[in-house]
């Protein structure tokens, strides 16, 4: 495998990733859309550099082809198009800070500043020192209308402390919840109070903030501790900021086919993506491109991303058991698989094919292919044919035969945990392990019924916890389709149920299967 890793970004996190990789003898390409590129390797990294480094700037990514181990990336630089190969891609583009003037309905003026503005040493702090008499009042508005976070509020508290101690100004912090969930922040908040800052917290009645015609501010508020009303006319009001993903990220998400979270960061809100994984094998999102987090966490991500990249290079992740295969003779090129694959593992050329390196084996393509041209041999041969169809079949009305299609990531370990906890599971329960609930085709469900199952359970991960993101959606749809089919053809009741479950819910598993068994016994035999 080519040992080059592409890093997209131009900040502390990107720099640390590059250092980590170079030190381990890995070649690195850094691509930044910024013209000015400030990249200084620490002396330690320079001394030990085994890997080579290439810097492409200013460039933006135009397109990306290929897959893990062999990505083929097209860049647009100022003059020309550039093409490079890389095994792994790590995105660590810095995020953006935007002041919340609109949120508080304020206009920036000499009286109203943003947090970043005040922190600028020349125009901010020096200016204040020269122009504000000792004891002048500075009010900070943070997390009042929208919740803030510890990253922003650490900045607020550090700024206030400096104003309070170095410039001898009187600071006031108006907030909803004081965010201290970071190392040293509780101690910082106490230091700040000790220095004389006033921290007022508001639960229901948030302060009334009025901007006068000349741009000055008056803040009227009810102090929740003393229940007294106050009016404050600050000399300067500082508005906090919100962290947004870089405006480059939507483009990168589009080019690389990456899922995003609600805010637009390049990692879906899914615990399987911890620490820096995305929906695509071999493309990682780190630090400020991944989520709102502290600088320490960005650096931690830089270590995590570099480590994962090296693991990938070593081939530790090419072990998917269930990879799918397309029978080109049967394929009608409807492109359903290409459209649905959550991991971008379908190659689209003269003929459609599964990219084994990228395939995570979820089985969605095989289950959805209208021409039944896609198979997952391991699942079909070893689990369905040998294991499931050959299962002992007894018809006993007291313990009806239940086939539970269980996601291998959640419901299977969960069943094992239930046994460990010594919950008594139904005797007629037969578990079919599937790689993801999205691989449970209608055909498999119907096969279960034609093979003497009295009832079928489809047990899948919770929404937002599916390794392939959409497993639950497809499992739900197919369960409903089979239910509809039953309603139209027989009157034998609801013999199929879908439930969501996690790997550590042994007791819940027991409750689900036992209730289902009871229901089947009440219904009477189907066969």
């Amino acid at each position, binding site marked *: 495998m080519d040992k080059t890793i592409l890093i997209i970004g131009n900040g502390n996190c990107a720099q640390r990733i590059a250092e*980590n990789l170079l*030190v*381990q*003898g890995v070649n690195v390409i850094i691509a930044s859309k910024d013209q000015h590129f400030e990249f200084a390797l620490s002396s330690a990294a320079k001394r030990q550099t085994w890997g080579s480094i290439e810097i492409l700037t200013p460039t933006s990514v135009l397109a990306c082809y290929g897959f893990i181990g062999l990505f083929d990336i097209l860049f647009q630089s100022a003059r020309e198009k550039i093409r490079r190969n890389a095994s792994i891609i790590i995105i660590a583009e810095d995020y953006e800070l935007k002041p919340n003037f609109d949120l508080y309905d304020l206009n920036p003026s000499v009286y109203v500043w943003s947090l970043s503005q005040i922190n600028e040493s020349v125009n901010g702090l020096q200016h204040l020192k020269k122009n504000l008499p000792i004891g002048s009042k500075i009010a900070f508005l943070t997390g009042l209308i929208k*919740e803030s*976070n510890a990253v922003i509020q650490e900045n607020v508290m550090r700024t206030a402390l400096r104003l309070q101690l170095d410039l001898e100004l009187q600071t006031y912090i108006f907030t909803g*919840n*004081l*965010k*201290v*969930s*970071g190392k*040293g*922040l*509780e*101690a910082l908040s106490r230091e700040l109070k000790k220095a004389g800052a006033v921290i007022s*917290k508001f*639960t*229901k009645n948030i302060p009334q903030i009025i901007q006068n015609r000349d741009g000055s501010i008056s803040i009227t508020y009810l102090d*929740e*501790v003393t*229940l007294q009303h106050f009016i404050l006319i600050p000399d300067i009001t500082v508005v906090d900021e919100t962290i947004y993903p870089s405006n480059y990220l939507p483009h990168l998400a589009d080019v690389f086919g990456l899922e995003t*979270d609600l805010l637009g*960061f390049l990692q879906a*809100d*899914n*615990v*399987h993506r*911890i*620490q820096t994984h995305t929906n695509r094998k071999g493309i990682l999102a780190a630090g400020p491109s991944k989520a*709102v987090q502290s600088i*320490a966490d960005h*650096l*931690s*991500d830089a*270590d*995590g991303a570099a*480590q*994962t990249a*090296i*693991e990938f290079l*070593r081939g530790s992740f090419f072990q998917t058991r269930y990879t799918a295969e397309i029978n080109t003779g049967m394929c009608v090129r409807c492109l359903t698989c290409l459209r649905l694959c959550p991991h971008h593992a379908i190659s689209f050329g003269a003929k459609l094919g599964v990219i084994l390196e990228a395939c995570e084996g979820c089985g969605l393509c095989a289950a959805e292919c209208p021409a039944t041209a896609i198979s997952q041999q391991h699942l079909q041969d070893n689990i369905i044919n040998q294991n499931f169809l050959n299962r002992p079949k007894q018809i006993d009305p007291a313990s009806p035969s239940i086939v539970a299609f269980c996601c291998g990531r959640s419901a299977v370990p969960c069943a*094992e*945990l239930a*046994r*460990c906890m*010594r919950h008594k599971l139904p005797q007629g329960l037969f578990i079919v392990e599937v790689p993801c609930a999205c691989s449970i085709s209608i055909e498999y469900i119907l096969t279960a019924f034609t093979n003497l199952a009295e009832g079928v359970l489809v047990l899948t*991960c*919770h*929404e*937002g*916890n599916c390794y392939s993101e959409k497993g639950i959606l497809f499992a739900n749809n197919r369960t409903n389709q089979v239910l509809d089919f039953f309603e139209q053809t027989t009157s034998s009741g609801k013999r199929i149920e879908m439930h*969501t479950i*996690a*790997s*550590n*819910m042994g*007791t*819940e598993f027991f*409750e689900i299967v036992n209730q289902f068994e009871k229901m089947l016994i009440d219904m009477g035999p189907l066969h």
Partner: protein
Amino acid sequence: MADGKVLIIGGGVAGLSAALGLARLGLEVQIVEKKSFLGGHAIRFSCKATDRCVKCGACRVEETLKNVTNNPKIKVWTETRVINVSKANTFTIHLSKRPEYINPRKCTRCGACFDQCPESGALIQGHSNYNFPFIAIYEEKCRFMRDRSCCICQEICPEAAIQLDGNSQQKVYLADAIIIATGFQPFNPESKPYGYNSFPNVITNLQLEEMLKRESIVLRPSDNTIPKKIAFIQCVGSRDAKLNHLWCSKVCCASALRLARLIKSRQPEIEISFFYIDVQTFGRDFQAFYAAVQNEVRMIRNIPGDIYQTEDKRLQVNFYDAALAVTQEEIFDMVALSIGITPSSELNKMVELFELRLDETGFAFGSGETQWFSVPGVYTAGTASGPMSIADTIASASQAVTAVAKLLRQKAG
């Protein structure tokens, strides 16, 4: 990638994640855990999903443990302590492993021993399918250990997997690097005026997690009935100047509010009140989560002064109601204390053994903090260096792995 051997002290999320990271880089890893079961505190946690996953990370612990169990590069010694360390070019570590009373290769988890043991608490059960063996002997309670008066379990075990008079084993391990992942000590709330350990219906958030994992619903400990009113009290042992605990434990707002919503989704008739100082931001969707929780849970910005028990084992909680400026007395059926994350006493031992340095709060420095690199080859992961969530812990383990990888690369030249 250079070869090397790494010893990890502690088999919780941090130790397990670090072990996996190192093994995937091709290194040989040895985990030592003083307790009987791997997985630390977090393996006891309940899934907090309601209609959808709320990203508590508890299932990730299960998955990490599974991957460690299946990885041939990782060796695990449970019930093992570090006795002594000497350092020359590499570390020479002397370990002592408790007798293997229950043979994990023979035990089939039938539970016969557990059912027949006459001494409650002498046999303890694991928390995960991947705990091997799943049942362990708790020496302090076992009658055989006390006076050799009972060996029922050994006699009845159908697999002859139990051997009560085994010997402890001494081992020596040579390692190029050490990762200290000794975790945290949950704050002991007995010193607080909340009647913990005297009033049966005052429990900790960790006990509540375990209860939900075991029973799937909340039951009042004193009589196993469904409580009508539950109070959560936050910051018990955190953000407390009297204790000199000048830190936020970082995870309790998330954990308690997720638990509260889980309970509301399963037992909607239960009324939940939440006593807090500040609600900390967590998750990618905090704004929506916080709005939803305010509809389901009564939020009270005050930490109660004290708790009294009524005759019927209910609890009178006294708190200051800021909105009305009066002290309120309110009766609850159950109270859950969100106890803080405090430095583990194991850290003091690590200070002696490895010259580990602690910061002013009593936690170790993290592997990402540069001051820390004063003892080459010794790194920390997880809550040994301060409060963290499961996700943060996994991230901190990757920092320790990176530090080890760099060190070994340097050594190799």
